[in-house]
C-alpha cells in the first residue's frame, strides 16, 4: 500500500492495464497489425505487388509466394490487405485525434463559460448529431474529392458532437471544485486554469471513450469504400476490396472473406484495448 502511494495515477493505470489479460492480448494483436501494415513497404513493392496487374494469375489461392492468393486482377492479396490497413488505421486514428482536439476545445469552452455560449454550441452540435453519419459522409463526398485527408476530416467531424458532450460533462464536474476556485483566487488566467488545472483532471476518464471511436472510424471508412465513395482505386482499401470481390463471390471466396477478416481482427484488437483502458482509468478514478 505504501508503495502504491508513491506512484502517479497514470503509472497505476498502466499497471492495471498490464495485469488485464484480455487487454494485453488486444494490445499485442494491435501491435502485430500495426507493425505488419506499416512495415509492408519493406516486403512489397507498391508498383509490382500492390497495383501491378497479372491477369494470368487472377482469383487463385494459394499461390506460391502469395499465401493469401490473388484478386480479380491477379494482384497479391496479402500485399493489398497490408497496404489497405495503412489507409484504415491512419484514417481511423487520425480522425479520432483531430475530433478529440476539436471536441476538447468546444466541450471545455461550453462547460466553462456556460449560459448562452454553452447552449449555442450544444445546439449547433445537436444539428450534426441529427443527421446519420453515413448521410453526412455522402454530403461531404459530393462537395470534395475523397482523398485520405478529406475523408479523415469528414469522419472526424461526425465524431465531434458525441465527444464534445463527454468533455463538457467532465469539465462541468471539475470546474466548480475547490481547488479550481483556489487557483483562480491566486490570480491565474482563465487559459491557465483550464489548461493546467481543469483539463488534466477532466480528460482522463474520456480518453478511453475517445479510443472507442477508432473502430467506428475504421467501420465508416470501409463502409464508404464499399459503396464506392471512399478511397479510390487502384489504392487498396479494405471496404473497396470487398466491393470489387462481390462480383466474384461464386468463384473466389478469399477476396470477399480475407479483407473483411482484417477489419474484424483490427476492430476486436482496438475494442479490447479500449475496454482495458476504460477499466484501468476508471479504477484509478475510484481509487483516489
Amino acid at each position, binding site marked *: 500500500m505504501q508503495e502504491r502511494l508513491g506512484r502517479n495515477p497514470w503509472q497505476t493505470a498502466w499497471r492495471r492495464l498490464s495485469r488485464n489479460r484480455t487487454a494485453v492480448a488486444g494490445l499485442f494483436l494491435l501491435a502485430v497489425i500495426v507493425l505488419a501494415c506499416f512495415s509492408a513497404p519493406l516486403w512489397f513493392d507498391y508498383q509490382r505487388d500492390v497495383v501491378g496487374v497479372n491477369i494470368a494469375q487472377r482469383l487463385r489461392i494459394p499461390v506460391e509466394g502469395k499465401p493469401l492468393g490473388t484478386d480479380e486482377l491477379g494482384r497479391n492479396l496479402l500485399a493489398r490487405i497490408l497496404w489497405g490497413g495503412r489507409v484504415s488505421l491512419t484514417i481511423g486514428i487520425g480522425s479520432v485525434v483531430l475530433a478529440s482536439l476539436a471536441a476538447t476545445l468546444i466541450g471545455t469552452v461550453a462547460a466553462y463559460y456556460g449560459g448562452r455560449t454553452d447552449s449555442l454550441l450544444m445546439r449547433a452540435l445537436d444539428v450534426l448529431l441529427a443527421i446519420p453519419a453515413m448521410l453526412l459522409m455522402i454530403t461531404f463526398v459530393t462537395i470534395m474529392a475523397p482523398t485520405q485527408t478529406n475523408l479523415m476530416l469528414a469522419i472526424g467531424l461526425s465524431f465531434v458532437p458525441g465527444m464534445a458532450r463527454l468533455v463538457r460533462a467532465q469539465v462541468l464536474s471539475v470546474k466548480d471544485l475547490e481547488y479550481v476556485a483556489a487557483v483562480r483566487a491566486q490570480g491565474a488566467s482563465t487559459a491557465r486554469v483550464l489548461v493546467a488545472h481543469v483539463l488534466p483532471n477532466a480528460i482522463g476518464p474520456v480518453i478511453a471513450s475517445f479510443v472507442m471511436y477508432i473502430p467506428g472510424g475504421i467501420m465508416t471508412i470501409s463502409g464508404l469504400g464499399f459503396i464506392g465513395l471512399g478511397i479510390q482505386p487502384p489504392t487498396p482499401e479494405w471496404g473497396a476490396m470487398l466491393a470489387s*470481390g462481390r462480383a466474384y463471390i461464386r468463384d473466389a471466396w478469399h477476396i470477399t472473406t480475407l479483407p473483411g477478416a482484417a477489419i474484424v481482427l483490427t476492430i476486436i484488437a482496438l475494442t479490447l484495448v479500449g475496454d482495458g483502458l476504460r477499466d484501468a482509468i476508471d479504477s484509478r478514478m475510484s481509487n483516489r
Partner: protein
Amino acid sequence: MTSYVLKRLTHIIPVLIATTLLVFALLSLSPSDPAQLILGVGAKPEELAQMREQLGLNDPLLVRYARYMGGVLTGDFGTSYSTKRPVLEMIGVRLPNTLVLAFGSLALILIVAIPLGVALAVRQNTLFDNVMRVLTLLTAAMPSFWLGLMLILLFSVKLGWLPSSGLDNVRAAIMPLVCLAVAGWTVTSRLTRASMLDVVRQDYIRTARAKGLPQGVVMRKHALRNALLPVVTSVGLLVGQSVGGAVVIEILFGINGIGKMMVDAVRQQDVPTIMGGVLIAAVVIAVANLLTDLSYAVIDPRLESMYGEPAA
C-alpha cells in the same frame, strides 16, 4: 397529453430546418456547375448563364433555401440533374424499400434483443452470459456488409437457400434485415440487460416478491415494464442508424432504395437528388423520434401527469 404531443411536435420543426439548412449549405459548395450538368459539355457560355439565372443559382443562399423548402411544401423536390425526372417521383419509387429495411430491422432488433437482454440479466455471470459477451464482441466488430457477404457466401452460394439480391419476398428480405439488425442486437441487448439489473435491485421488486408473486410475473409485469424505458428512448437512435446503415445494405443486395439513389447521385454530382434523399431521411428519423416520445408517454404515466391538465 395533448400539450405533450404539441410540445414534441414543435421540437421537430427547428431540428428539421437546421439539418436541412446545413446540408443545403454544404451541397451548395459543390464544385460542379449545375447548368453545365443539365446542358452538357457542348453548351455555349450564354446558354449556361441563362440556365444559371433560370435555376436561380445567382440568388443568395438563404433565398435559394427558402425557395427550395417552399417547393418541398408544395410537393416539388426539384428535378434530378442526371435522370431529368422529378426527385419526388424518384423518392416515391424507392422509399418503400428503404422503409421496409429500416423498420423491418428495427422490429427484428426489438423482438430478439429485449428477450435476450432479459435472459442475460436473469442469468448474470453464468456461462450463457459469458458466451454471449464473446459473441457480442465478435458481432460488434463485423461491418454489416462483410457479414452480408459471408451470409451470401453460405446461404446463396454454398447452400442455395436464399437469393443473394433483391427485397421482393420474405426469403429475399431475411439476409438484408439480419445484416442491418446485428449492430442493434448487441447494443439493445446490453442496454436491456443493464437496465434490468438496475431495476431488479429496487425496493418495489422486493415488495412484489415478498407478497409471493411468481418470479415470471415479477419479471414481466414489474421489472420489464420499467426496465424498457431506456430501451424505448434508444429506439429513435436505432432508426437513425438503420436509415444510415440501409445505404450500405442496399448497395450490397442491389436493393433499389433511397441510399442507392443517393450513392448513384454522388457520382453524377446530382445535388437535388442528394438533397431530397437527406430531407426524406431527416423526416423519417424525426417522425420516428416523435413516435418514440409519444410511446414513452404511454409506457410511463408519470409523463402524462407532468404535462396533463392541472388537477385543481
